């Protein structure tokens, strides 16, 4: 298995109050597939995203990615993990305002041992003509495409997307989904998409449904459709 989670729990403490954001969540993900994580607000989606991405630590349980236990890694090794294995796409893009489109992508490529060509990725995301612009000069859809380019250019084995279409209009959302699908097909990258939008699950190979920190359903999608066909 490419990703294996064993009884992963995460507890947030605020004074005397404890909130179990994740409660003994276990699952396995295969390499090169697309997964979606769905669930209502507060179900633990973002917590799972953070822990899988090495941004946060689990309280209990283990997570293996490519046979490496990331829950046992120290901060330095976690930074290496993020650098070598994971690409992130956020809801609000999180591009670096002080860098141009090209530089934003280059900043990511520069960290990778095996990066893709920046210009090639920009062309693939259809933002090559915007390469010298700053993020604030772009539309939301364009910014998200740059964010995907930034994630892809590292040539990671896993791309984690947190509500990648949450701030976009319908057309832009469709384009972003198609690009993610293209990346998955072309580079064999495993993609995990956290979303509120149930329709997106239809383009995934499997869906994890969370509720109150528990994994209540892991359903394989036998009737997977292309991103192009997804509508809502």
């Amino acid at each position, binding site marked *: 298995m490419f990703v294996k989670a064993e009884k992963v729990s995460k507890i947030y403490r605020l004074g005397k109050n404890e909130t179990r954001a994740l409660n003994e969540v276990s699952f396995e993900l295969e390499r090169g597939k697309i997964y979606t994580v769905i669930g209502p607000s507060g179900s633990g989606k973002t917590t799972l995203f953070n822990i899988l991405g090495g941004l*946060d630590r689990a309280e209990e349980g283990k997570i293996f990615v490519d046979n490496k236990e990331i829950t046992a890694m120290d901060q330095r090794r976690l930074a290496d993990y993020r650098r070598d294995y994971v690409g992130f796409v956020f809801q*609000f893009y999180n591009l670096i305002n002080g860098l141009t489109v090209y530089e934003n992508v280059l900043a990511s490529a*520069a960290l990778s041992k095996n990066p893709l060509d920046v210009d090639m990725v920009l062309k693939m995301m259809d933002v090559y003509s915007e390469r010298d612009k700053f993020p604030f000069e772009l539309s939301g859809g364009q910014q998200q495409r740059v964010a995907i380019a930034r994630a892809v250019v590292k040539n990671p084995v896993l791309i984690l997307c947190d509500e990648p279409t949450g701030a976009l209009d319908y057309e832009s959302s469709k384009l972003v989904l198609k690009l993610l699908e293209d990346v998955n097909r072309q580079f064999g990258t495993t993609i995990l998409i956290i979303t509120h939008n149930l329709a997106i699950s239809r383009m995934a190979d499997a869906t994890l449904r969370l509720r109150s920190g528990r994994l209540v359903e892991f359903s394989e999608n036998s009737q997977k459709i292309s991103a192009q066909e997804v509508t809502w």
Partner: protein
Amino acid sequence: MVIKKIPLRTIKRDFLQFFSIILLVAIASMTYTLFAVSMEDIGRNYEMFKRDYVQEDGYFITSKEVDESLLKDKFEIDLEERLFYETQQDGITLRIFSISDKINKPYIGVGKMPEEGEVLLDPSFFKAHQYQTNDEITISGQKFKVSGIGYLPDYIYIIKNDQDFLPDPEHFGVVMMLKSDVQKLFPAPHVHYYSYKGKVDNIEDFKGFINSNWGLLKFVERDQNPRIIYTEMKVENAKRITLPISLFIIIVSSFILFIVMRRVINTMHAEIGTLYSMGYTQKDVFKVFMRFPLYIWLFGSVIGILLGYVEAYPFAEFYRSYFTLPKLTSFFPWQHVFVALLLPAIFIFLSGYFALRNFFRLTIVQMLHGIDEIKFGKLPTIKFFDRFEFKTRIMLKYGWRHFARELILIVGILFSTILMMYGMTAKDSIIVAIEKAYNENFRYNYLYMLNSTSEHPEINLQDFAEPYNLLAFDVEGTKASIMIYGIKSNSDMIKLYDERGNEISVSDQLIISKPFANKLGVNEGDEIKIKNKFTGQEYTLKVYKVADLPVGNNGYMELENFNRLFGYDSGEYVGIFSKEKIDIPESSVFESYTKSELLTTIKASAEDLSKTIGVMALIAAILALLIVYVLSTLTINENKKNIGILKMLGYKENSIFKMVLGFNYISFLAGFITGIPLSKLTMDSLMNTATKDIDFAMSLDLSINSVLSTFIILLVVFLLLRFLVRAKIAKVMPVEILRQQVD
């Protein structure tokens, strides 16, 4: 690393905000470089001048010619007679000296050493009267050719009389010529003037020996010679204030940088979190963000050093011409450049480091999602604020919430107040107070110092003139000396008042001037031990009253009592105060001057002082301006969302302005009001330290004029900025709230 570009681009984007900090650092570096380099330049050149041109250790004037070899052998000193004479023509007094070979040798700044029939002029007089080399000058009816400009090591601060405060090259000049020419002009000198070089172990024996053998008329040690020590005092003073001023500006800049850095980091929280998520390590990110302080330091201090360095030489020239010091050598002040670079670096980097360190304590998830505001210690809630109406309550709460930046504003205004007040007071004390003293206290128009203390039967004293006697004393346990005058008990020439303005009647007891009392730390009723400068005889006198005089180491008592106490016969005197000019045989007069001469000097010098005051006021105003601007802009940027909400709720700009920035008025007033007593304290302490080891006393008093002028200038700057900042509030649209939600 491409992410290295982030800081520079951010600085460009928020240019004004960062530029203000850069400017503050630049001002700090410039202030340090300007003062340190120019003072080093003056100091080095002065030391070289003193050494190479053999500045005297003292001079004395006797009524008889001294046996030089006897004195030299007995006291193991070097001694040289200098012929001197004073001549007056067209309201100009020329003091003529023969050119020395060994002590106080002239440095030729322009032209050449004079030959027979030629003279050197002091640089200020030369410039003031627009002489050129080879011009003619008439002295006592004889024409001389000006061979050039000469600097004398004992006439650095060229004042006519020891009591004068400011030089007056329009009406007084020093002329240097060959001994033979002085002898031709003035064949029979009434007195003999000697300069000596060497350390005399027992100065009292020395003076006593001269007095008993050749009749000592005047004895001035180097450290008591105002023509030398005024320069040293001013240079010391400038050196003393250089570091505190620069340090203060740097510390304020560092605090502001800390606040700005926090804001920059807060607004970039998601970007920094993203950099982490991409795999950048804390070290990578830290290195990138420490470039903010690096650039601020680099731009600020390099610009500051360059400006300071470029300005230092004209500044040194200005000082040099003010003190008539020559330039003998040039040098590059590496150590000062190094300090000017290093000093801001320490504070700026520390400030940047602490701002970042606090942020990097957050987890990546906290960075990515942001927290409302990164707090460094919580302030307690003050319930008292809730008693006020809504707008005032919000204003007070904003001020309390941004306590640190309000404190910086207070300190900034306070510092500007002190700086500006110092300049204003210098003008008031030196010019207005002296003018006032010469109108209210010293009511004579002419002062004559005679060659000897006697009954002077050759002088017919009329109603408009009063005799006085005078003796100089050293005050035991200090380096100060006092001139005690014996004057008529109901004198019309000297009127003394206490601090409440009541006239003090002159009696058999000692009255001393206020600055001198302050300097000695004595009050009415205290005793002081004094020692006659010429005879060494000691006396213990009780201070009867302290007279409110602005300047001077003076004491007064009734003339007959003075004579009895100090061993003179009744009716003897050494000088005359007069309302009108008196015809006194020239051979009896040692020195004379008119009050109008002195007042003209003061007025003429006011222009020079005004320049210095202008520079100080400008620096103070710029400082206040930058601090208020940066802090107000920051507050508005940070509160765009709240301003948007308030606008959406229907509040008008005036009300929003009051709520968000109204506390600044309180801080401004607090800074200014605290600044007034602190200005007085700072100035007194500065003056006391500066005059501690020298024979000079002066009191600096704040006048209502300087307080008002300072307040008006600072208020205008403050209100102007408020106006500019208000425009920023007007630009905030309610839609900002939505944008902030997305950001």
